């Protein structure tokens, strides 16, 4: 379990959109289980990963997020039955479009994390943070205004 100190220079900002029923609960469980992960990952609660408009992802990058995670229930487990299947399609395309536009695909991720997968949530948080930290600050889409 690695915890990166905040003193060690630049830390990325990761925005995580978590669906209320699975991934947000998974993040709660990670906390309840006292699983440490980098503090630079911050969660925005949405009812369903299907609520996450790709524009929100672009907005996060534009506002200087260095990485974005969209987390939802496992396919087949959506509280709303099918929301995450649409999420999957949207972000399969989005990921490729970002890459095509020159945004490093490592900055963006979709994960299926259930309410019982606290360790998986913590692991996902550590992984994306480590990856984005290695990529450095988002210079691809940051709005310098």
């Amino acid at each position, binding site marked *: 379990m690695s*915890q990166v*100190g*905040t*003193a060690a220079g630049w830390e990325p*900002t990761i*925005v995580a959109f978590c669906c*209320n*029923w699975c991934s*947000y*609960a998974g*993040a*709660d*469980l*990670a*906390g*309840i289980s*006292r*699983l*440490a*992960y*980098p*503090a*630079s990952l*911050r*969660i*925005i*609660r*949405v*009812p*369903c990963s*299907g*609520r*996450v*408009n*790709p524009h*929100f992802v672009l*907005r*996060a990058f534009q*506002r*200087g*997020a260095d990485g974005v995670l969209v987390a939802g229930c496992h396919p*087949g*487990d959506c*509280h*709303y*039955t*099918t*929301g995450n299947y*649409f*999420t999957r399609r*949207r972000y399969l395309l989005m990921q490729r479009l970002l890459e095509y536009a020159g945004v490093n695909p490592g900055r963006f991720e979709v994960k299926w994390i*259930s*309410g*019982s997968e606290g360790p998986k949530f*913590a692991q996902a948080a550590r992984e994306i943070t480590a990856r984005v930290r290695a990529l450095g600050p988002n210079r691809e889409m940051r709005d310098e205004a």
Partner: protein
Amino acid sequence: MRRIGVFVCWCGANIGGKVNVPAVVEAARTFPNVVYAEDNKYTCSEPGQAAIRSKVTELKLDRVVVASCSPRMHELTFQKTVETVGVNPFLFEMANIREHCSWCTPDKAAATEKAIALVRTAVAKAVMNDPLQPFPIPVTPRALVIGGGIAGIQAALDVADTGIETVLVERDPSIGGVMAQLDKTFPTLDCSACILTPKMVDLARHPKVRLMSYAEVEEVKGFIGNFQVKVRRKARYVDLKNCKGCGDCAAVCPVKVPSEYEAGLGPRTAIYRPFPQAVPGAFTIDKAERPPCVRTCPAGVNAQGYVALVSQGKFKEALAVEKRQNPFPSICGRVCNHPCETECNRGQVDVPVSICAIKRFIADTVYADGSEEPVLPASAKDERVAVVGSGPAGLACAHSLALEGYPVTVFEALPKPGGMLRYGIPEYRLPKAVLDREIDQVRQLGVEIQTNAALGKDFSLTDLKARGYAAVFIATGAHKGQSMGVPGEDATGCVDGITFLRDVGLGKPMDLDGRVVVVGGGNTAVDAARSALRLGARDVIILYRRTRAEMPANSWEVDEAVHEGVKLHLLAAPVAVTVRNGRVAGLKCIRMELGEPDASGRRRPVPIAGSEFDLPAEYVVTAVSQSPDTGFADGVLELRRGGIIAANPVTLQTSVPGVFAGGDAVKGPATVVEAIADGNRAANAIGLYLRAEAPEASAAALADQPQTGKPFTIPKDVAKVPRAVMPTLELSRRRRNFTEVELGLDAEAAMAEAARCLNCGICCECRECERACEPKCIDHSMQDETETIEVGSIIVATGFKPMDPVAYGEYGYRRYPDVITSLEFERMCGASGPTSGQILRPSTGKPPHTVLFIQCVGSRDEGKRGHQYCSKTCCMYTAKHAELVMDRVPGATTYVCYMDVRTPGKGYEEFYRRTSEEYGARYIRGRVAKVQPNGDGLRVRVEDTLAGRPLDVQVDLVVLATAMEPQADSMDLARVLKVGYDADGFFTEAHPKLRPVETNTGGIFLAGTCQGPKDIPETVAQASAAAVKAVALLSKDKLLASPIVSYVNETLCAGDFFCQPICPYGAIEEKELAERIAGRPVTRKVASVNTGLCQGCGACTVACRSGAINLKGYTNEQLLAEVDAVCLK
């Protein structure tokens, strides 16, 4: 400007230990729109809530942000708090700085920084929050309980007792569940049935309960208070109302399968009642999908049915079953190519059942003893039908029509009826006497057979019409032998196989002296060859251009031919008939080799250049192919290539209305059973035609019925039994005569052979039950029915299943008969069980002296084979089992191998103490490593971890305390219900402590072991709790629904309805909007949200490019504000 108050919680040290709370408060004060911030030790406590209330009032706060734990924990708490002081609950916002911050961030500075960011984000969202009002939805005052185990029974009774209508859906024929299978219950050792069955009866009699047994929930639509549940009521085939439960039906049922209720330890019949106290008490017929033998038979003859009856010695009943689809069992029992045997599932165990031999046995036996019960034709009808051709197709058709009461005349061109049966199949395979007997039976039904009457020669189709025949069935067969197309075929001594066999059949005197070469590889060739041998040929050779494997003839016929001395000359083809003085002198042949596969999938024979050779012969029989002789068609009937008659494949009607055709005349050369199938089909079609049914209706009536019912799985532990051998005539007695070669099975052999049947269809549809049932409440044609019921609440009580311990190979379950599961043991203890309550070793049927119980089989196992969880009940029931052994088998020794003994329950520890201390059960702490047979018993190796040494224990019986598992299809049901389930497949409760019987889906509650392993008292308590929850919901007229729903900005909505297919609830509807454009009234379509259906997922919002559809509580504005705030460094 907003007036936001921020309250940051220490949560004691939970937050305060990692987050610098005062720093967060300080930062919050600098956020725009924040007019006040403070910290509290425990914001959720009454003083904390009081602080919020007083500050809201004092400072006129219009929004409140609490930074504390997860909103999943306390959002509702604080929403209620602010509501009491006049702030709309949806103007409250929460920052999760505990689960998402202090608990997962060891570094204090980082945690503080993150907490500030999370509070900033919550404030940013709160700024954009709008007040929302829950809206009322009506409630259907009816509850549904899924599952009729003790949990479902208790829940249903509790709900119904409040006067609310309750529907209980149970998928098995009876309610009762696993508890009904138990003998005694711990720790009181009271009889399970004694406490359960009264409740079952109460339920059945309760005026407010509707019991839907043998039914399953297929689909759930709607939402809390308003569910529409589609229930499939499986066909019971027994009228529930009229069945008296007398059991006469089961007494005559010939099919035995393992009883589920007896955990496989005993059999039950296909028509059954799971146990005597079952509720409802009616019987049920268990049908699987059509068995492969029936499915494969072209005529759909119910092979399983007559085989099952033979196994019971019911021969005449078997014959009746046989004759439903096939009027010629003694013929088919001799000459059928029996594809049923090829498909027979028994072939996957050892060898297929000898169905054809059994069929012949039935007919021969019953005909011989004259016990056949005559079938009476239906009342006579007026329309006369002509059948042209008296082969199997024509006679089968005539037989069926005659049974329906139609006067039928059969026209036969040849001197005697039977067609190819008579003139194509030699006597040694099908004695003419056998043939005549079954043709006579057709005659006895009133069918007139006119012989020497050939269509096209002696009469025409027009004549038939003129003579008043309302319909005609043409089944003239394929009697034209094809020539080989080589020079010299017209020489004397060269004849085609059809003609040859016909001459044999007509009894023309023939003396074949010399060598006969039969060209071809089909059944005609083999029949000709074997006949030739019998006619005195010195030498008979079958010349075939491919290899033995490609020969289309029945392989057993080829075997017999070779056995009798016929020689096979393979991979050679004739090039010319050598003619000397106008007589055959031999064949000029060429050798072949196999090339690429052709259209038939067989490898194409290719001549080898220069390999010609001469084959001297006195006779040549060409049996290469045959075709229908349809010269009579005369341009009136449409023909296809090869002269076959064009007929609709379903109705068999030809191009002339009222004229039908079938058999070889339509199919080309095919089998007897296919011809019979066509005859039956034609009779059906003609009946429909004569009753002037619409063509579509008749097509539907005639089409092959789709396969329904549950699939059959071959049991794993079927013992191998050799197949019956058909006795045959000694070889020496086959020369120069046509005596029948196959001699038939005797009754003992036939019954033994019939007992090999696996009963793949379960119910064999012999319909003995129908005959036995006095109130006539059995209906084999019953269909599943679906019904949609409207309920306001659903209680899920689908229970568990015991784990199959076969994965634990070291315990030897299924390999050693004396290793059984705890549920099997439970049945063994039951007074009404398979051993009448005696504890016996399955291998010997004698009481065991030493019994060893292995606990935690599949439970508390981190490996792939089992479950991590504790199944909670096994420690106690194992103690109970040990006591039962020692009570019932005097002097018996018991061992219990355990990991820990867990006894948390009232009286549990005392019970365990008694078992170990008073009864003296020997508890060994350790996992069993191996169970091995040793001498008469089993040797169990276990490490005694307390003593620190391995032990070998010699025992007579091993009982495995298997884990409780969710039902195999629990996840499917979860998806139907849209409730969550955990990694093991148990349904998840809304909150493990505070909402243990609710699910995350409003209106759906959980009871019993579908939520997790638990014992009976706990299950019953949970069931009552779920009932109260349901009643609390259903006793309201209206519910307040969450205002978190989508809404449409109609100005923006372009009406493309991309949102519509995204919505899983069908909540997006079309609405016509009237507007004035340039003074002109116009309308346009916009989306409109049905708030009763919308569940607030918001997936629609993303489909809308212009953002016209938005989600209250999670608007685009709110989420963009959150993104902006959370990204701020």
